[in-house]
C-alpha cells in the first residue's frame, strides 16, 4: 500500500469505526473488539509509512479543493510522523486500559465514549498529517468538537462548567486569534502550505512577524501557554482514559505540534532567528514552565497535579519551538513522544488508583504502594521520565532541549529547565515515596487490590515504552533530526 493511501486510511478508519461502535453498543465485548482491532490496524498503517519517511519521501494527498489555491491536503513529514506514531500507538494502549477502567468504574454511556474517542483520534491524526495550515486548523477544530462530549461525559454541573470553559477557551482562541493569523498569512503569501525553510520567510517585517507569531502561539489554546491554560485542569473532570490519551497526548500535543509546525514550516527557523520575532514569546513559555510547576506542587488532587505538570511540560516544547535552533527543535519534537509516554503512564496510574482504591487525593494515598506495588512502581518510572532522569526516555529530550538553548544563546532557558526539573522532583517523587514508605492511617486499605488486568497491561506497556525509549530512541531521534533539515 502506498504511504499516501495508508495516511488516508489511517484517518478514515477511526471515523468509519465509530459507526460499528455505535451499532454494537448493546454488546460491550464486540464494541471493544471493534475499537481494539481498529486501533491495531491504524497503528499498523501509520507504522508502515515510517521507512518511506525516513528514506526522505514526503507522501502527499489532496482531499478537497476548498477555494482556488486552498485545499485540504495531507502531507507526511518527520514531525507529523512522530506525532502520528505516538497518538496511534497510545490509542491502542489506552483502548486496552479503557476496558478495565470504564467497566471497573461503572461509567455510563460507554458507547458514546468509545465513538467520540475514535473520532477524536481521527482528528488528531488529521492534525499530524496536515499538509497546510487550513487542514491543520480544520482538524484542530474537529478535535475540539469531538472531545467536548468526552469532557462533559459525566453530565454533572461541574462537567458542564468544565465543558463550557474547555470549548470557550479552545474555540475562542482558535477563532479569535489563530483563524485571524491564518487569514493574515494567506493575505500576505497567497498560500497556506507548510514549506521547508518557511512560507513566510522574507515576506513579512520583523514587528509584524512577532505579532503574527503571537497570534498563532496564543491562538493555539491547546498548547496551554499561560494565560490560556485554564481549560486543561478543568477538563480533568473527564474519565481518566480521556485525561490520559487526550489531555496528556492527543489534544495538548496537537497544540504544541501545531506551534512547532508553524515555527518550522511557516516562519522558518532561520527567519525566526534573524528577525527575533519569537524572543519575547519565550518569556511566556518560560513563565508557564515555572508557574505551572509551582502550582502543581500545591495540588492535592492527583489529576489536578498532573494537569499542571502537563501545562508546564508543554511549554518545554513551545520553548523548544521558539528557540528556533535545530537542536532545540529536535529536542522539542522528541519531547512530544517522551512526555507522552511518561505522562500517560502517570494518568493510567491515577486512574488505576481511582478504580481500585477510590482515592483521588494524594494525602490519602499513604501506604497504598504496599497493596498496589505494580501501579506505584510504574508511577515512579513515569515520574523519572517526566523529570528527565535515566533510565527513561525523558532524558534525551531534555538533553537536546538544553543543548538547543545553548545553541540559541538563551542561557536563562537552560536555567529555567534546570529549576523546573528540581520542581518536578519535588512534586512527583513524594507521591510514590509516601505510598511505599508512609504508614496508612486507616486499616481498610489492606483490602485494596491492584486495578483490573487490562489496566495493568496498559500501564505495563506505557512504562516499558518509557524505558525502551531510553535504550533505543533511534526512531524518534532519526525522525526529529530530519525536521530541521538534518538530512
Amino acid at each position: 500500500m502506498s504511504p499516501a493511501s495508508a495516511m488516508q486510511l489511517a484517518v478514515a478508519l477511526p471515523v468509519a469505526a465509530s459507526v460499528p461502535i455505535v451499532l454494537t453498543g448493546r454488546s460491550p465485548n464486540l464494541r471493544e473488539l471493534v475499537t481494539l482491532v481498529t486501533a491495531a490496524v491504524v497503528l499498523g498503517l501509520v507504522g508502515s509509512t515510517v521507512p518511506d519517511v525516513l528514506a526522505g519521501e514526503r507522501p502527499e494527498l489532496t482531499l478537497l479543493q476548498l477555494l482556488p489555491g486552498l485545499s485540504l491536503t495531507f502531507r507526511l513529514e518527520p514531525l507529523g510522523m512522530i506525532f502520528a506514531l505516538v497518538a496511534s500507538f497510545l490509542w491502542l494502549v489506552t483502548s486496552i486500559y479503557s476496558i478495565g477502567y470504564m467497566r471497573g468504574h461503572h461509567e455510563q454511556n460507554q458507547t458514546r465514549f468509545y465513538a467520540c474517542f475514535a473520532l477524536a483520534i481521527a482528528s488528531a491524526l488529521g492534525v499530524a498529517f496536515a499538509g497546510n495550515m487550513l487542514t491543520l486548523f480544520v482538524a484542530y477544530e474537529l478535535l475540539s468538537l469531538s472531545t467536548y462530549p468526552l469532557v462533559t461525559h459525566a453530565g454533572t454541573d461541574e462537567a458542564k462548567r468544565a465543558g463550557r470553559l474547555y470549548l470557550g477557551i479552545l474555540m475562542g482562541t482558535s477563532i479569535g486569534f489563530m483563524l485571524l493569523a491564518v487569514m493574515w498569512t494567506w493575505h500576505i503569501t497567497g498560500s497556506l502550505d507548510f514549506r521547508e525553510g518557511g512560507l513566510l520567510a522574507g515576506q513579512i517585517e520583523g514587528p509584524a512577524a512577532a505579532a503574527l507569531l503571537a497570534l498563532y502561539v496564543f491562538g493555539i489554546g491547546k498548547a496551554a501557554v499561560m494565560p490560556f491554560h485554564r481549560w486543561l485542569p478543568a477538563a480533568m473532570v473527564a474519565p481518566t482514559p480521556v485525561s490520559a490519551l487526550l489531555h496528556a497526548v492527543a489534544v495538548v500535543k496537537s497544540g504544541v505540534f501545531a506551534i512547532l509546525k508553524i515555527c518550522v514550516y511557516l516562519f522558518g527557523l532561520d527567519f525566526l532567528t534573524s528577525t527575533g520575532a519569537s524572543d519575547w514569546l519565550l518569556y511566556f513559555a518560560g513563565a508557564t514552565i515555572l508557574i505551572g510547576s509551582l502550582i502543581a506542587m500545591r495540588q492535592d488532587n492527583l489529576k489536578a497535579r498532573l494537569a499542571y505538570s502537563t501545562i508546564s511540560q508543554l511549554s518545554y516544547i513551545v520553548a523548544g519551538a521558539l528557540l528556533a535552533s535545530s537542536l532545540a527543535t529536535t529536542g522539542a519534537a522528541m519531547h512530544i513522544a517522551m512526555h507522552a509516554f511518561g505522562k500517560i503512564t502517570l494518568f493510567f496510574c491515577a486512574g488505576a488508583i481511582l478504580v481500585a482504591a477510590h482515592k483521588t487525593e494524594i494525602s490519602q494515598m499513604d501506604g497504598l504502594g504496599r497493596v498496589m506495588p505494580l501501579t506505584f512502581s510504574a508511577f515512579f518510572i513515569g515520574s523519572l521520565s517526566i523529570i528527565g532522569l535515566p533510565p527513561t526516555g525523558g532524558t534525551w529530550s531534555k538533553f537536546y532541549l538544553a543543548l538547543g538553548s545553548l545553541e540559541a544563546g538563551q542561557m536563562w532557558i537552560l536555567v529555567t529547565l534546570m529549576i523546573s526539573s528540581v520542581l518536578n522532583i519535588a512534586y512527583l517523587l513524594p507521591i510514590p515515596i509516601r505510598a511505599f514508605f508512609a504508614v496508612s492511617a486507616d486499616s481498610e486499605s489492606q483490602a485494596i487490590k491492584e486495578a483490573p488486568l487490562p489496566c495493568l497491561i496498559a500501564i505495563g506497556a506505557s512504562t516499558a515504552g518509557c524505558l525502551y525509549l531510553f535504550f533505543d530512541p533511534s526512531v524518534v531521534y532519526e525522525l526529529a533530526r530530519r525536521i530541521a533539515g538534518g538530512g
Partner: protein
Amino acid sequence: MLSVLANDLPALQVVVPLVSAPLCLILARWPRIVWLLCLAASWTSLAIAIELLDQVLSGGTISYAMGGWAAPWGIEYRIDAVNAYVILIVTGIASVVMPYANQSVAKEIPADRVPLFYALLMLCLTGLLGMTITGDAFNVFVFLEISSLSMYGLISMGRDRRALTSAFQYLVMGTIGGTFILVGIGFLYVVTGTLNMADLAMRLPEVTQLRTLHTGFAFLVVGIGLKLAMFPLHLWLPNAYAYAPSTATAFIAATATKVAVYALLRFVFTVIGPVIAYQDLPFGEIAKVLAVLGLVTGSFVAIFQENVKRMLAYSSVAQIGYILLGIGLATVMGLTASMLHLFNHALIKGALFMAVGCLFYRTRSVRLDDLRGIGRKMPWSFGAFVIAGLSLIGVPLTAGFVSKWYLVQASLEVGQWPLAVLVLGGSLLAIIYIWRVVEIAWFGSPSTRAAEATEAPLGLLIPTWILVLANLYFGTHTGLTVGVANLAARTLAEGLR
C-alpha cells in the same frame, strides 16, 4: 408551445407564483391540492431560475420587455448575474420550505386559514421575485409592497397573540420604509424623467451635483435600510421573526432581507453609481459604521434572549451587518463576500429556523426554558440545529466559513484589520449564543414539554436536513457559489474606480 414559453421565462418567473395565489383560494376546499399547487409553483420557479441563471452565465444580460412595450416606456425585466443569483436563492429557499410547510402549517394554522396562508406565501414569493427581476425603479416599489403586505399577513397568523402586534409594528415601520423608497424614486424621476434603471444610470451622470439627487439617494437608503433591518432600523425584525409561524419565519428570514440587500446594491451600484455613492456621498463610511454597530449589538443582544427564535432574529441583524460591511468596503472582494454571505446566510438561517420549527412542532414552545433537555429527545432536529449553528459561527467546512473567509480577506486587502478582528469577534459571540442553546437543550433535565416530545416527523426533518447538508456541501464545494458571487460582484463593480 414550449419554445414560446421559453422566450417568456422572465415573465413566467413572476407570473407562476402570482397566478397560483388566487388559485389557492379557489381550491380552498381541498387543502392538500392547494399545498401541491404551491409546491409545483415553487419548484417550477426554481427550474425557471436555474434556466435563467444558465442563460445569463452563457449569454450575458437578458432584457425582457413586459407586454411587448419596449423600454424605457414599458416595464423592462432585466436579468444579469446579480439578480439571477438572488432569484436562485429566493426560489431555492421557497422550494425547500414548501415541502416543510405541509405538516408545519397544518399544525400551526387553523384549518380554515390554511389556503389563505398559502396564498399569502405565494404572493410574498411573487413580490420578492418581482422586486429582484424588474429593471424598473417604480416597479421595485410595487413589488416591494406586494411582498410586504403579504408578509404582514403571514406574520399575523402566528398562534401567539403577540404575532398580531408584531405584524402591526412591522406594518407601520415597513410602510414608512416603503414610502421613503417611493419618495426617493420620485426624486430620481424628477431629475431624469425616467424610471427605467438602465436609463436612469445613463442620465444620472449629467446631474451628479444636484441636491435633489443626493436627497433622493438618502431617502432610498433609509427606506431600503428599514426593509433590510439595517441597524438601527431593525427594531421590527426580532418580534416579527419570533412570533410568525415557523414556515413563514424560515421563508422570510432566509429571503426577505436578502432581496432588500439586492435592491440596495442595485440602486447604489447600477442606478446611482458608485462614484456618487462612495465619493460624492459618504455611503461607504455610513454602511461600514452601521454594519459594525449592527453586528456587535445584534450578536450581543442575541446572547441574552430567552426565546430561541428571537435570538436567531437578533443574530440575523448581526449577519446583515456582515453583508453590509462587504458593501461598505466597495471592492470586488468585499462585494464577493457580501454576495456569498447573501447565499450562505439564507442557507444558514433557513436551516436554523426550520430546525427550531421542528422543535416547536413537538414542544409548542421556543422558550429556552421549555427546550431544556430536548436534544436527547429529538436528536435529529437538534443535530440539524447544531450543524447549522456551526455554520453560523463560521466553522471550516461549513458554508458560513467561506463567506467569513472572503470578508476577512476583503478587510485585510484594504488594510482595515480592525474590521477583520470585528468579523471574527462576531463569530466568538455567535459561539456563545449558539452554545448556550446547545448546553441547555442537551444537558438540561427535560422540561415537562420536552419529556413528552418525540422526534419530529420526516416531512419536517427531510427538508431541514436538505438545507443542513447544503450548508456542508457549499462549505466544501465552493466553485459554484464563489464563481457566481464573484461574477455578480464584478458586474456590480463595473462602475467602480
